[in-house]
């Protein structure tokens, strides 16, 4: 580590300010870093083994491949929308691999790496983006909650879950991912305060990727995010979010602190969303190429590649096997998306309440009657152009997208 990881309490520095009056960064704060963009290790930490480094790199490569395939599928119209994790692989992989499998994770909506590491399959991740499911996996089975799209709403959930852990007397650590934008939400700040007051075993992991859609972090806050933690009574850490080794180590330290009963902690991982907010976004409207290029030079994958190369830690066998694994993942992603098939609305009526209500029963029955009516009409179809709901339903069926519309 080139810098101490414990960053809380350093609020006395005079903040440098941009002409707009927005904060830059406390000059006394430098994110913890082990592996620089040039691929050079700071010092020689004994725990940085070839095996660990390759393992972390593997998850980052798989995530990047998933991301690229999903983005391409969105462009082909196979996914409604996609939120790329491009550039944030180190922050996610470094942190989630520092947790135990039983540690429950509350993701936001861009934590595809965390999902993969937790054993969620690509098709399960893509189900929500394809629009065939509200959550493609079983949260309890993966100890990974569903994605939360309302910013920050899941942070009180993480605190509450951690209160349950506390009552159960286990040493599990609950981790919640969120971004710089979500840190502005009341729920985020309530959750920090609440967790501190009851000493809940929860880690708030902020991926500061610099933008909330188009709004830069400098417009979100007047102090660095991790400074806020001290005000709530959370132990805080600042780390280079593009350095997977530093993220891994800092998260391990934060988790050790929480697991040993030290109370909640906060990590700010400084990273960059290299892609758009989602596939519907156009980042060229709000950031310039020079900025993107500067962050490109800090790419979390390339620096590990340089390290592996320099240390002689990636032999041809590892490289070939990983390439093949990425290819297999890409094939799986493409076939899974095509394999989702049409959806049937009627199943949804049974998922809203513990027991279906009279209202939903009557709506389900009415819908079934409607569909049955279309089928009757289809028998009598004279082959003319569709000019009714029935016709539209037949049209939808002809294209294999179901009648749910």
């Amino acid at each position, binding site marked *: 580590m080139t810098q101490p990881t414990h960053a809380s309490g350093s609020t006395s520095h005079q903040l440098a300010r941009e002409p707009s009056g927005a904060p830059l960064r406390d000059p006394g704060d430098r994110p913890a870093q082990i592996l620089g963009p040039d691929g050079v290790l700071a010092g020689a930490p004994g725990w940085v083994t070839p095996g660990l480094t390759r393992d972390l790199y593997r998850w980052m490569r798989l995530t990047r491949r998933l991301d690229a395939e999903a983005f391409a599928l969105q462009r082909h119209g196979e996914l409604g929308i996609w939120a790329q994790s491009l550039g944030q692989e180190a922050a996610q992989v470094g942190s989630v691999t520092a947790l135990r499998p039983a540690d429950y994770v509350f993701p936001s909506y861009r934590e595809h790496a965390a999902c993969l590491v937790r054993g969620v399959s690509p098709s399960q991740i893509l189900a929500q983006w394809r629009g065939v499911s509200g959550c493609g996996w079983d949260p309890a089975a993966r100890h990974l909650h569903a994605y939360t799209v309302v910013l920050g709403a899941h942070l*009180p959930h993480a605190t509450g879950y951690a209160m349950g852990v506390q009552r159960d007397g286990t040493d599990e650590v609950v981790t919640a991912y969120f971004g710089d934008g979500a840190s502005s939400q009341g729920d985020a700040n309530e959750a920090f305060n*609440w967790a501190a007051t009851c000493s809940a075993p929860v880690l708030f992991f902020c991926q500061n990727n610099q933008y909330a859609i188009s709004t830069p972090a400098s417009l979100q806050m007047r102090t660095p995010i991790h400074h806020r933690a001290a005000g709530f009574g959370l132990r805080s850490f600042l780390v280079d979010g593009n350095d997977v080794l530093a993220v891994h180590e800092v998260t391990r330290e934060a988790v050790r602190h929480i697991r040993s009963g030290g109370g909640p902690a906060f990590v700010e991982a400084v990273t960059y969303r290299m892609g758009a907010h989602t596939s519907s976004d156009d980042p060229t409207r709000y950031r310039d190429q020079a900025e993107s290029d500067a962050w490109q030079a800090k790419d979390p994958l390339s620096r590990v590649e340089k390290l592996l190369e320099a240390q002689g830690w990636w032999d041809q066998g590892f490289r070939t096997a990983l390439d093949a694994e990425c290819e297999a993942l890409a094939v799986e992603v493409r076939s899974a998306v095509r394999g989702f098939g049409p959806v049937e609305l009627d199943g949804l009526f049974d*998922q809203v309440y513990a027991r279906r209500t009279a209202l939903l029963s009557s709506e389900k029955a009415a819908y079934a009657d409607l569909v049955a009516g279309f089928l009757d009409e289809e028998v009598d179809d004279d082959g003319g152009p569709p000019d009714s709901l029935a016709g539209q339903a037949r049209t939808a069926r002809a294209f294999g997208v179901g009648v749910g519309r």
Partner: protein
Amino acid sequence: MSRLSLSAALNAGLRQVLEEDPRAIVMGEDVGPLGGVFRVTDGLSKDFGSGRVIDTPLAESSIVGTAIGLAIRGYHPICEIQFDGFVYPAFNQIVSQLAKMRARTAGKVPLPVVIRIPCGGGIGAVEHHSESNEAYFAHTAGLRVVICSDPQSGHWMLRQAMACGDPVIFYEPKRRYWDKGEVSSDLTLAPAFDRALVAREGTDATVVCYGGMVATCLEAAAVAEGEGRSLEVIDLRSLSPLDLDPVCASVRRTGRCLVVHEAPGFAGLGAEIVSGVTERCFYHLEAPVLRVTGFDLPYPPAKYENQYLPDADRVLDAVDKLLGF
């Protein structure tokens, strides 16, 4: 069987739940040693400890948000929102998270969370302490919205809400907290909590109401009886899902229907009931379905509320119109 106030009957219900269900947790602002501002949680903290009766920070969104997390972990939280007008900071957690989690996870993450909200006016309170916001929540799929009207229904319905497995908005009409009635703790005698009940039988018109208005409508029916008019009063109890079967059965007999609630009328529950009754009982109706509601004003300062709230006179005036068609 014992004679209890609504507040005490709810307290007895909570006590029973905490005794029977080790995963049940009562949480909210001032619910601990103070026993809640209406004393509904009186003595629970002393008997069950601060681990199960939790005095929370003053943060409504997180009261519901942490309850969601506790429920994911397998606990059964009962949240108290101190007053109806304070539930709005928690609105997002209730409608975007609590209500929808079961559906979006295809049933894998049920959230059995009960949110108790003292509701309605009539106690001379300051602003934000007398609101009727049931329509907001009834509009959201995934929630159950119920409201008790007397000590017995409060006691049974609260225990049933805890057992149903769904998120429940549980309204308690605060001006009835001190009304007393006979309460049996025998849950096997309780009608299903999502069923409407006939509170008084009658033949000339059907009066549909809920919560604090049930006593008002029963008072009106007693007066009407003296005037030779027989009103059937139905206590809806469950606002979502809405149990219209007993309402429609009654309207088919009486041919006339009046809906009474203290919430503002526009886009309120009454509109839903009028629509349902009209659709299902059209050929039985002798008159249009009428409503008596609070006015479409922000809830007024306390000195106005006797004029603002529907009372027996307004109900009887509407009955006159209904029977005059």
